[in-house]
């Protein structure tokens, strides 16, 4: 009995430490965004002046919009392309399918630094150069394998007779896909979309390589700002982003349970 209680206590302590490890830096940063002192000095004095001055920081706001735009477009493109690719790999047998499937996943393991360098060289070679469009292309390429992995995993649980049943009832390929297959893989599509959004919105390395001074994303802009001199505005913008993205994640987890529904 006593041992059970001790083990239980240890278990709780472990979970607590784990959560502290994950959230402590974030919580401190969020608190400091409301502190008067820009140099993390205590005692803590409440202020919202950093949020007010953030509103005046046009560069940071422009970069935030760029990041959001790129992340949303990346999500849409990679979800559509990735789901279509997963469906094709699931449905059809064709020459070189195995090779193609094998080649889809190594990009996940290639360090972003190397991918970024390669893209920079390539985009210059083909005349695309740097800028927001180049960043978008890079992000789509990074996000696609994630979408394909997640959607394909969901497709593994799909019963192929459902498509056959739909066809026997007179449905054409488009109707079968939209009314039978897609509803089934939707949790996978949403989860893949979240991954794509996160990969793009968090992306620093590839974005850094492909940015130009006027055309950059939020992570790159934050990095540039820190190098010039740290300001609590960075804490403020980071806090806003954390709150928004955590709310988004919690909502999605609640509605879709990441494909866990039967």
């Amino acid at each position, binding site marked *: 009995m006593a041992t059970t209680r001790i083990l239980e206590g240890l278990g709780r302590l472990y979970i607590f430490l784990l959560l502290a490890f994950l959230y402590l830096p974030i919580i401190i940063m969020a608190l400091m965004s409301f502190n008067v002192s820009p140099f993390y000095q205590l005692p803590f004095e409440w202020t919202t002046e950093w949020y007010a001055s953030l509103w005046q920081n046009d560069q940071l706001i422009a970069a935030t919009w760029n990041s959001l735009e790129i992340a949303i477009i990346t999500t849409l493109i990679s979800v559509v392309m990735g789901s279509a690719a997963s469906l094709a790999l699931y449905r059809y047998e064709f020459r070189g399918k195995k090779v193609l499937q094998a080649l889809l996943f190594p990009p996940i393991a290639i360090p972003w630094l190397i991918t970024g360098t390669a893209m920079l060289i390539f985009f210059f070679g083909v005349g695309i150069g740097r800028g927001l469009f180049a960043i978008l292309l890079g992000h789509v390429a990074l996000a696609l394998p994630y979408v394909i992995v997640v959607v394909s995993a969901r497709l593994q649980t799909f*019963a192929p*007779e*459902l498509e*056959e*049943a*739909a*066809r*026997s*009832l*007179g*449905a*054409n390929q488009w*109707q079968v896909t939209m*009314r*039978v297959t897609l*509803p*089934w893989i939707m949790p996978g599509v949403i989860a893949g979309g979240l991954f794509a959004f996160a990969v793009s919105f968090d992306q620093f390395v590839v974005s850094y390589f492909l940015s130009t001074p006027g055309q950059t994303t939020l992570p790159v802009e934050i990095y540039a700002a820190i190098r010039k001199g740290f300001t609590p505005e960075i804490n403020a913008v980071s806090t806003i982003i954390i709150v928004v993205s955590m709310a988004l994640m919690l909502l999605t987890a609640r509605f879709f349970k990441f494909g866990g529904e*039967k």
Partner: protein
Amino acid sequence: MAGVQVSSVSRSFGAHKALDDVSIDFADGGFYALLGPSGSGKTTLLRQIAGFDFPDTGRISIGGESVERVPVEKRRIGMVFQNYALFPNMSVADNVAFGLSVRGEAKAVIAAEVQRALDLVQLGKLGGRRPHQLSGGQRQRVALARAIVTKPRVLLLDEPLGALDKALRVDMQIELKRIQREIGITTIFVTHDQEEALTMSDRIGILRDGRLVQEGPPEEIYDRPKSEFAATFLGDANIFRGDTTGNGIRLPDGTAIAAGAGATLAAGAKASCAVRPERIRIATDAGASDGDANTLKGQVSKRIFAGNNSTYFVERDGQTLKVIVQNTGADRLAEGQDVVLRWSPESTVLIAAN
């Protein structure tokens, strides 16, 4: 509604011949069972008729129209799958409505037809349920309603009762037969269950290794099997092998067995005789022979009592024969007892050796 003609259809997958020159005429409005062990090609044949797969050679026509290169969605067939294949994201009513909805029928028409189909399968009140809230038998009915609501030309059933337990299966057999009669649709039913084939269908086709072994009404196949395989796959049979005498065979030990039916064979050829276990009479005495009956002596090695009947296993010259005796209350025979078996030539079918 329409008949289905399959003419000389062959289909290979790599080196494996799944269907080898199969021809069957499925009559308009009939209930036809395709029976065979797994790997016999029965499901492959059903998929050719459905249009999921196309034959390498041969022709398939539905209602006189050639369809062997028409894909399934254009064939106007109804199909019930082994695991029902109900759409999990839709309600029962939406499942049934699917075929009408993809055709672009008006909402009011769909609602009325769906209700009629659900009433027909006695699920009129369950339209709002989800498939996972239904029992196996109810899912089966939904699958059937979904398949017939579009008024297909032919109804195809792929082992539809395989997933149900025994009691429910018998209920569904009766139910399926009732619905089929009511709408008069040509029905092709794939099964490996011989009892199901016998009780439900007007005609049976037995397949083996991609070939049609025999085809005809259940009584004809049961009473006049044309091969040892047909005799033993559809029902139980005692098989005797020997040389033909023209109207029977002579066993290796010289005993003659007279056959009243079956193949006409040249004397001296290898042949078999098949006798159903319930056609053999079993007795302890050698006398009271009724003229031309076939007679064999043996010894009871085992008796299995099954309530309404008993099965006796009788050893004779290294062969175990099966005899089924109705429970009439008469004296039962003990294991180890010497017995005489008798049966008429009319109960004996002569089969060419395969």
